[in-house]
């Protein structure tokens, strides 16, 4: 049996398309909940924390999949600098997808807030209670979120450029398996 070198593995594609809507929703939930004083504030906050922890679990699984499976090479005719940026952006994604939930969890810990998931289930604090650390992490949570959103927009634009203009198989490497 010959290996499919042109497409991401089914597990990588499954995790990509499962996480993509969750992460995008999370970014909109986060930016929306801090800017509203309607009842949406409570609803979005109640979704934000357990969803963030779910993404932390998913990105951990995905990172293992990434390290244990081959990734399809980018086309030879793609300029080197574009290939470098493409690779770099993927590692930036991994770093941010790990950092965002961990910073959020640490931030609530440092602020002395309960880290409520659902019902009576709360997570333990992972850093000591310290208001200066809280302030730093709270700012970091916003800055990293904006960076993650910018990375997502660039990734979306690049994916569509590959799919609609270059039509070089990069988009289908994540969109589908072998025909």
């Amino acid at each position, binding site marked *: 049996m010959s290996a499919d070198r042109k497409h991401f593995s089914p597990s990588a594609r499954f995790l990509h398309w499962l996480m993509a809507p969750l992460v995008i929703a999370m970014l909109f939930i986060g930016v929306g909940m*801090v800017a*509203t004083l309607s009842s*949406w504030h409570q609803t979005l906050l109640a979704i934000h924390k357990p969803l963030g922890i779910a993404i932390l679990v998913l990105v951990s699984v995905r990172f293992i999949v990434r390290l244990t499976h081959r990734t399809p090479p980018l086309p030879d005719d793609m300029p080197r600098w574009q290939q470098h940026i493409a690779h770099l952006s993927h590692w930036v994604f991994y770093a941010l997808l790990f950092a965002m939930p961990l910073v959020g969890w640490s931030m609530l810990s440092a*602020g002395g807030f309960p880290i409520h998931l659902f019902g*009576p289930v709360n997570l*333990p604090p992972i850093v000591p209670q310290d208001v200066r650390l809280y302030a730093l992490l709270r700012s970091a949570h916003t800055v990293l979120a904006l960076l993650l959103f910018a990375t997502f927009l660039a990734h979306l634009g690049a994916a*569509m450029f590959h799919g*609609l*203009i270059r039509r070089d198989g990069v988009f289908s490497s994540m969109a589908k398996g072998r025909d």
Partner: protein
Amino acid sequence: MTTDPFSPRPRGRQTIPLFRLAAIGAVVAAIGGAFVYVAGFVTPHRLTPQRIVNTFEANAGVHPGFRRNHAKGVCVSGYFEGNGQASDISRADVFKAVRTPVIGRFAIPGGNPSAPDASVPVRSMALDFKLPDGQQWRTGMNNTPVFIVNTPQAFYAQLVASKPDATGKPDPAKLKAFFAAHPETGPFLSWVKGHPPSSSFGNAAYYGINAFRAIDANGKTHFVRWSMVPETPYAPVTAEEKSQHDFLDTELRDRLASGPLRWHLILTVAKPDDQTTDATQAWPEDRPHIDAGTLVIERESAQSDGDCRDINYDPTILPDGLKPSADPLLAARSSAYAVSYNRRTHEEAQGLASAQPPARGHE
């Protein structure tokens, strides 16, 4: 000719597909635009928690490191001893016959951390119950059984109308216009008129302002309001006390030096038709009252380095067995308190707060 837009590019065709390029740009711009819209950057007229807190700052000035409202206060600590009587309506651990540590704060409303205590008739009590398993119950209560307004929009209108003018006092005409436009303020105003403020933080009753939902062991919901009723008999504030800038703080310290202070947590249970989303309306007196246990306050310390300083008394932080009602003030309190907390903790982190005089003893 193929109709699949993702099919391989035909060889030899080198023209730039402008339409497709524009479509990509449009998709990216639309998603980016939606994000900016949700963040509220393009709708400055929208009432946001930031705007509420900005208005507090406009009215009272920015006092780095201090809460934007109820800025002047004192930290206290003690415990709550449940008696099991409220366990029929709420499964929260705090209501069982157990002792739960409490970090609290007494304060007066307003954004000025060195305001004279006699400047307002309102006193507040905030409590953070530390339950086992990392659960917490935070509540912010006032000494008035009803609130002055029942929506965040009216609260904002009141803030705007209360802005001090060149004389340092709010414009009476603007306040008059506000109250005329907001008849829901009536019950609050008549209560304050009929109840002179207490002589002490320790002899006032405090009310949870909003309705909440108590969830029992079977998952059934009971709408409740809560209050803390003092064992110390009420006495009105005296003229001599009023002449002292910080009489509430001084008096509390003296009282606690001679022993702890006690309150009874009273849960009032609504009947099915009682409204639960209007903080200006009291429930009828004949509703069942449950004495859920005793709050014992043992110690106090200045808020500049007390345990309460770094706590955001967000009233929607509740243990399993209590949930917020749909009262629109609750969500607004939660989001505005977060903005105040974020601003003052950043000031603390930047070392700006140390430049301020301590809230206690500053005349």
